[in-house]
């Protein structure tokens, strides 16, 4: 929420603020679920906002697989309750203009996202 206030004070368009807030939120949720603790760093420049989230959690063994919509590490009973829809990473990819995930299983994960302030021209896959 504090991120959102600052971005609004900077006069960034509502759409940019939304994308930053949603990607930060999804990244934060991932840390809470898998790693319990992590650090978020935000760097705002006139042209873009960078969000970096780092944790010392279990890491992601197969990043490409994790990025698939619907892929979830949640066990069936959790999924039945409605959690673990597997949309976190795909949501982040949709919101951010650049997304980089570096992970070492057993050591931790770092997610870097860049949200460009100018309207994007090309559509993401």
């Amino acid at each position, binding site marked *: 929420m504090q991120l959102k*206030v*600052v971005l609004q*004070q*900077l*006069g960034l368009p509502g759409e940019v603020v*939304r994308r930053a*807030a*949603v990607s930060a939120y999804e990244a934060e949720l991932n840390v809470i679920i898998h790693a319990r603790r992590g650090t978020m760093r935000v760097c705002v420049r*006139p042209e873009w906002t960078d969000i970096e989230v780092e944790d010392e959690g279990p890491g992601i063994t197969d990043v490409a697989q994790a990025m698939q919509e619907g892929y979830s590490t949640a066990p069936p009973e959790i999924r039945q309750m409605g959690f673990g829809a597997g949309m976190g990473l795909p949501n982040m990819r949709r919101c951010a203009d650049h997304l980089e995930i570096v992970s070492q299983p057993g050591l931790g994960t770092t997610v870097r996202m860049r949200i460009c302030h100018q309207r994007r021209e090309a559509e993401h896959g």
Partner: protein
Amino acid sequence: MGEKYFHSVRLVEERCRGCVVCARHCPMEAIRIRAGKARIFEERCIDCGECIRLCPVKAKTTVTDALGRLGEFTYNIALPAPSLYAQFPPSIAVERILGALLKLGFDAVCEVALGAADVTAAVQGLLQKKGVPRPLISSACPAVVRLVQVKFPDLLGNLVPFEAPVAVAARRARQQAVATTGLSSRHVGVWFLTPCPAKMTAVKQDASSGITGAIAISQVYGDVLRLLRDGEALPRVPVQSSWLGAGWALSGGEGQAATESGLMVVDGIQRVSEVLEQVALGTLTGVRYIEALACAGGCVGGPLTAVNRFVAEEQLRARAACWPQEADRGRVQVEVKPVPLPKPVLRLDKDIRKALRKVESMERMLHLLPGLDCGSCGSPSCRALAEDIVQGQASETDCVFLLRQRVRDLADEMKELAAKLPPSLDKRIEKE
């Protein structure tokens, strides 16, 4: 920037003692205490009326048109908001309340609840369509609409795009008056009897709505009560609205009329803000329609009502069971309004580079400030003072704590200096 933005909230100067209560509770931090008086900064005010409600000395009020203005028109129509019915116990029939309005000088009455039912029908139709934003957010409360414009511009597309019930009622009433009296429209005065400063502002701002002016319910309450109590014969005006429309005055009334499932009702401006944060994050997946009202309890809790909101709520709810059946009048077409524009008032500077520098300065300033949010400086919080300082509207020493620290530091310096006289003049050295 164009014309000055009109706000209906006003200060009664003699009563204001600069106590900071309104400033500290304003959801938009739009108030500053200057020279012992509360001043509202227009761009940030959303007319929610919290300050009117909270002022301990009743120094806040709204501009309201006076009944005397009826004299300017040949034919005057009253548009009572359904909150009016709630001001009186259910033993008093609505027909008599409306009749009392005729005795006040109005020539005709058109219930806003009629317009509300028309808008409900339009919303029901909208919810059936495909591709409708989810959730839809009601635009009935102008304070909420303004909150969205300022704090949640990405949700502007979720607002219900229809005009307000009072605008629909005004159109009906005006057309009917012109048809029956043969007068030209400019001789017809259409007056909204409202519980709400936000609606009052909305009426004043939109000349095209066909509403001449707005009168606070609290202004007419006394006169209407006297007429009802006097037992004098009052004309009985048949009730034309249904409970569907009258229920809008209560929190949940509008929403329950619009949809049976996926409804969320939230009232109180702080709670609305909280819910909208979640909508922006996309967490409220099961919700199709949000009824959001700035006033706790709904419009019956508006600052311009006369009766306590819990009493009003109970009095209106009790009427539901015996509400007269709606006469079949057919629905009136409701106009679609364009999406409101965002208002970037939170923006520190148009130039993002300057804005970035200002944010940094603000953070540094915030570390210096004590973080008590006491309001002594005239700003509602330390964060607000930091922003005011960075924008050149206040200075560091406005903060009493910083000022005293400075005085102490200066005193220490003076002591040091006082201890050092040149040896040629310092008589104390000789004595040692």
